[in-house]
């Protein structure tokens, strides 16, 4: 329900910062978060709503390691058999 886009803080001027989104420079309000130059942030409707802790590629890697952990059966009554397919709820 809300489009938000990541960008990098390249200039800070009071309550506003210039944010670089793939070479598009847009001005965003920074009163909702503490930011510093070089931070990657999430902008929604002209406002920084959060500092991004890792980049997309990094998150994607982390994501798949995270769900792998979830998939590994922790005890015996968990999923058995053929790892690659055919599971039932």
């Amino acid at each position: 329900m809300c489009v938000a886009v990541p960008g990098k803080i390249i200039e800070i001027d009071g309550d506003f910062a210039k944010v670089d989104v793939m070479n598009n420079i847009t001005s965003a309000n920074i009163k909702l978060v503490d930011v510093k130059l070089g931070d990657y942030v999430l902008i929604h409707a002209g406002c920084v709503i959060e500092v991004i802790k890792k980049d997309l590629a990094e998150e994607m890697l982390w994501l798949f390691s995270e769900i792998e952990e979830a998939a590994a059966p922790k005890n015996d009554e968990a999923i058995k058999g053929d790892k690659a397919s055919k599971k039932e709820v």
Partner: protein
Amino acid sequence: MQIDMSYGSGGKQTSDLIQEVFLDAFHNKILDRMEDAAVLEVKGKIAYTTDSFVVTPMFFPGGDIGKLAVCGTVNDLSVMGAVPKYLTAGFILEEGVSLETLKRVTASMAKAAKEAKVQIVAGDTKVVEGRGGIYINTSGIGEVIKSGISISNCRAGDLVLLSGNLGEHHAAILSSRMGIENSIHSDCAPLNSMVLKLLEEEIDIHCMRDVTRGGLATVLNEAAEKSGCRIQLTEEALPVSKEVKGFCDILGLDPLYMANEGKLLAVIPEKQAERALNIMKASRYGKNAAVIGRVTEGLSEKQTRGVVMTTALKGTRRIDVLYGEGLPRIC
């Protein structure tokens, strides 16, 4: 100096305006005669089209309303397999527009016409109340050198070629309105030399369009529907610059639906596609040309027709036409 209502009166000021602005910028043997109609010499079949231009802002990175007015009509003629020859230009000026602005626009038209090797042979001016706007209508005639190019003529097995990056005109216009700074330039350009080259090299183009308002998605749907086929796109093959992608991300827009003003879509038999691609890439406005998809059989049921895209994730997505106006959104 500003244009006021008297410049549209048909009297002294009107003729001064014609002399000082329009004849000065466009002059050629036919126009200079100042008759009520231009008498033209043409060979064989002609292509004939018209288009009106109302863009705001009037000047934008990569072009202006004048360049657009010439290129738009030149491109419409070119994609029908014609060599554009003659244009007419009708101006509706809102009072308050400065002579300097008008001269900038006509100079830009003259420059574009020179590049496209067309002559502006007739014109008209009216002045209306308003706030300094300029609206232009151009019509054009071209000599057809290849017949049979048609939106209904895509055939299974053809490849779909696009002459460059998507969305640049739309993004350039919207950037200034939305206060986003970037170096995106409108792709506004005459495509006639690229088309001529393709035809001279005997590429058997089945269908050709310049991709303008409504974006690539809308044109492709029209082609698929009229040709009774399915067009299969590959997301990863679509040329979109990083900057335009970022711009679209900010405003929630999709480059498939954004306007272009200098992009050629050509549907070509597979065995000629590589040669055609090289011709596009070698021409001035085709550096980023790419094969973006393929035409397949549109079997009898309606479901199999239309435009479908294989996404980067290897999923499939159906691509429909643009509905309404593509507005920036936050949600």
